[in-house]
């Protein structure tokens, strides 16, 4: 769709050499500018008008042509100034699961000028149109498909704008340091046939009901630990005690699953972690190379999921896209 000639490839090559950064301010160092396709058509129009003016010796058509031409040239300047001073930084990002859309939050602001008609995207795909008004901050979530687990680093972020008249297009490639951790897709796996699993699951639930130490709720305690049944019975908030017996924990091990492929196993593991976490039971993870002792809570869950996400990959910058 866009005009892709030499300047485009040069800008791409230059951005490859630049380092990854957390924050960019756009200036003449990283803004590239070139006539758009419609801009070339417009130049053709100007030439046509000029020919008409010459042929019919009409000074008014000359004037008209010069006016249109001058607007074209001024739009080069305006197009640059529109992008100039735009501050782009990566914002805190969220994790997501494989198959969802991962959101790279990008914060945009401009103190010197408003920036209109910006289109944000990665590699010319999924360009979203936004405008940044002077002195306001704007957080934009770039939604990209997360088709693989792992740590995804935002590839070249492209910001382009054809403001004001669409004759000229200014763009920039930024290697913004924005990472999203993508966990394996949770898929329910069958692990009951591998002995002990189902039983221990049943047992643990049984044990859980009995052995959990209960105490009354105090401010500051996690609402996740409230025993709602007790609320119905006794009309007071009762929570489970923090330190629970390790005995009722589940070990999620690599050999527990029948699935042949590594990815499938990871997906099953992920499902079970989420499942057990929801049931507020303790669990440990034992997969090749990683051993996480049984525990529970958000942090523990995240630790386990991260281990799954990064399983078999090196921790830093494993996935681009």
């Amino acid at each position, binding site marked *: 769709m866009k005009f892709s000639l030499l300047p485009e490839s040069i800008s791409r090559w230059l951005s490859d050499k630049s380092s990854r950064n957390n924050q960019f301010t756009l*200036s003449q160092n990283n803004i590239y500018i070139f006539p758009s396709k419609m801009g070339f058509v417009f130049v053709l129009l100007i030439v046509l008008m000029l020919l008409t003016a010459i042929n019919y*010796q*009409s000074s008014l058509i*000359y004037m008209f042509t010069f006016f249109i031409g001058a607007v074209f040239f001024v739009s080069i300047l305006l197009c640059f100034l529109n992008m100039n001073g735009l501050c782009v930084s990566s914002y805190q990002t969220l994790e997501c699961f494989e198959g969802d859309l991962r959101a790279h939050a990008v914060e945009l602001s401009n*103190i010197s000028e408003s920036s209109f008609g910006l289109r944000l995207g990665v590699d010319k795909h999924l360009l979203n149109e936004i405008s940044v008004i002077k002195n306001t901050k704007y957080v934009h979530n770039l939604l990209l498909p997360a088709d693989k687990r792992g740590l995804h680093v935002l590839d070249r972020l492209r910001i382009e704008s054809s403001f004001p008249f669409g004759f000229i297009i200014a763009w920039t490639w930024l290697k913004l340091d924005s990472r999203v951790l993508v966990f394996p897709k949770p898929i329910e796996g069958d692990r009951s046939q591998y002995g002990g699993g189902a039983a221990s699951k049943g047992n643990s639930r049984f044990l859980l009901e009995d052995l959990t130490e209960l105490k009354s709720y105090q401010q500051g305690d996690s609402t996740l630990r409230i025993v709602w049944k007790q609320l119905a019975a006794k009309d007071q908030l009762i929570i489970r005690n923090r330190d629970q017996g390790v005995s009722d924990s589940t070990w999620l091990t690599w050999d527990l699953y029948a699935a042949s492929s590594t990815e499938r196993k990871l997906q099953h593991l992920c499902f079970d972690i989420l499942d057990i976490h929801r049931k507020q039971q303790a669990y440990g993870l034992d997969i090749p190379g990683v051993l996480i002792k049984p525990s529970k809570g958000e942090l523990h869950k995240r630790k386990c999921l991260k281990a799954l996400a990064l399983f078999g990959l090196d921790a830093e910058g494993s996935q681009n896209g």
Partner: protein
Amino acid sequence: MVKPDSLKPHAHFLSYPFSVLLSIILLQLLSHYNHSPLWLVLFTASIACYGFFTYKVIAKRVVASIRTMLVILSVGIFFLYFKVNFSVDMAVSFLLLTSTLKFLELKGKKDVTMFVYIMLYLSAVSFLFVQSFIHAMLQFILILACLYVLLCLNSGHYLSRFQAPLSSLFKAIFIAGPIVLVCFLFFPRIAPLWSIPIKAQSATTGMTNYMSPGDIAVLAQSSERAFRATFSLQAPEKKDLYWRGLVLDYFDGRSWRSSSSSSTHQSFNKVDLGDLYDHGDDYYEVMLEPSNQPWVYVLEPSRASSSNVLAKEARQFQLKTDAIQSTRYKMTFKRSVSNSRPAIPTAEVVQDNTKRNGVERSLLDDLQAPLTSNHRTQQYIQNLLISFPKNIDLINHLMKMFSEQPYFYTLKPPVLGENVVDEFLFDTKQGFCAHYASSLAYMLRLANIPARVIAGYQGGEYNKQSDYYIIHQYDAHAWVEAKLPDLGWVRLDPTAMVAPDRILSGLDDAVGEQGGFLDGSPVASAVLKISGLNWLRLRVDEFNYKWQKLVVNYGNDEQQSLIKKIFTGLFPNTDSLLRVAIVIGGLFALLISMILSFLWYKRYAGRYSNVEKAYLVWLYILARLSGLKRMTGETPNSFLVRVQSSSHWRLAKITEKVTAKLEQDQYQI
């Protein structure tokens, strides 16, 4: 990958400023209204409104089948009407029609952009047909509307917040202004490359190349401008302003026609601005209104000083091409002190025997006279020739006859029958200038004196404020030229004998109470009579004339003389080589300084806010005044303390204020 367009299919569609697009079409129709067929204007306007209505009110696009039907219908009618004679006005009509049809199905951003481009081109082309100031303003508004649409397409979803993007539109125009001016003044004008006729067919106005008795009286109904003229030196007296147009030398017993015209003239209607020549200080410039005819009007004796005017036989001049636009030409006077003045009332020697210029022609052509009708006149001349054997006496007698006998000058002469000259001379004795000129020339030819009728204009309205003459259609006139053996060609005006007022003050006074003057245009005659309105009319005319002279007809010659003026004005005492060096050097320095300042601006534009900039500027001034410099890493506040502790208490006060502003700016948001 999911395409964003599929996520929100109508988001783009809705964001078009649809009503602006409609108004662009309607404005376009208005500016092409004059030279497009009426059916086309009405048809396109209704199609556009229909499309707008269905979109805005019913919130739908026009159904595809109806669109197809409209396309077939309009293209069909178009080719039935225009056939296939290619000309610019046909192309314009076609563009108007097709772009309006496209308006019904604008889809993407690209569609709208192309539509706007076509509209811009149509605007530019409209200047081929109309060049008035009002029209130019209309086109300016059209450009603004077109740019506004483009702006809306490219400024994201901020359509509701008009102000901000709109300000960049005005910024663009503001910066573009000086560029336009410089380009317009100094862009070299190049000769035409090829030509396509502008209009396929066009109605002519003003003079025609034949004249029946009563023809010129029709022009007296029109207050339209024929041309305007500016004199470099003293203009001739009003009674001597005989604007010579066509030589009518063939008489068929009823009407006079030009025997030579149109045969050599290429009536291909293209534009030729022409170059001006310098043939001396004593010249006049004429701005001819578009008449779609090649005739030019000149005073005697003069020579052509612009290349778009050709000298023809019998001291006639003609344009190389038809005057389809207002056309400017320059003529230089060859005033010579006339030593011989014929003893005939009103007569003026216009070309004496000694000088010959232009193409000479046989005198026999000027003696042609049909003998099949007007027998009474023939008899009358035969008798006169006996009593007045000398040419000069005969002419004198005939001229005096018009004033002594009860001839009557009127715009409403009685209708004449078969023998036009007979009936006019001996029966009705009432006529307009065409009657008098026609009969006098016929009589002279019968008396074996070479004679011909000249059609042109006489007199003109003087605009005191700007020192130029306006010649209207009602100033149209006809007179006679006769050749006397010892004097050469002599101008004779029988009308001046009958109604001296016509020549001295104008038609209005000459016709007076009996009416007939400007009967066709009551508004114009009313304006002439109310002094306030008349004053206003003259001012408007003045403005239009200036617009035409300075802008519309700004060509190669104007450009050269302007450059020359600037050169000599700036450096009166330097030689030309040095001047060129200075100008080139100056332009170069200007360019470099522009680039440098732009780079500087780019470097700092995005980095600091306005308050920060002001603070930095103050720091610079402070360093200059007192030598106090802020260290790297020193905060504004600690620097302030240091300034305050120094001896410059005045500067410290300002620094305090500036620092406070800075603090406010930095920490409030």
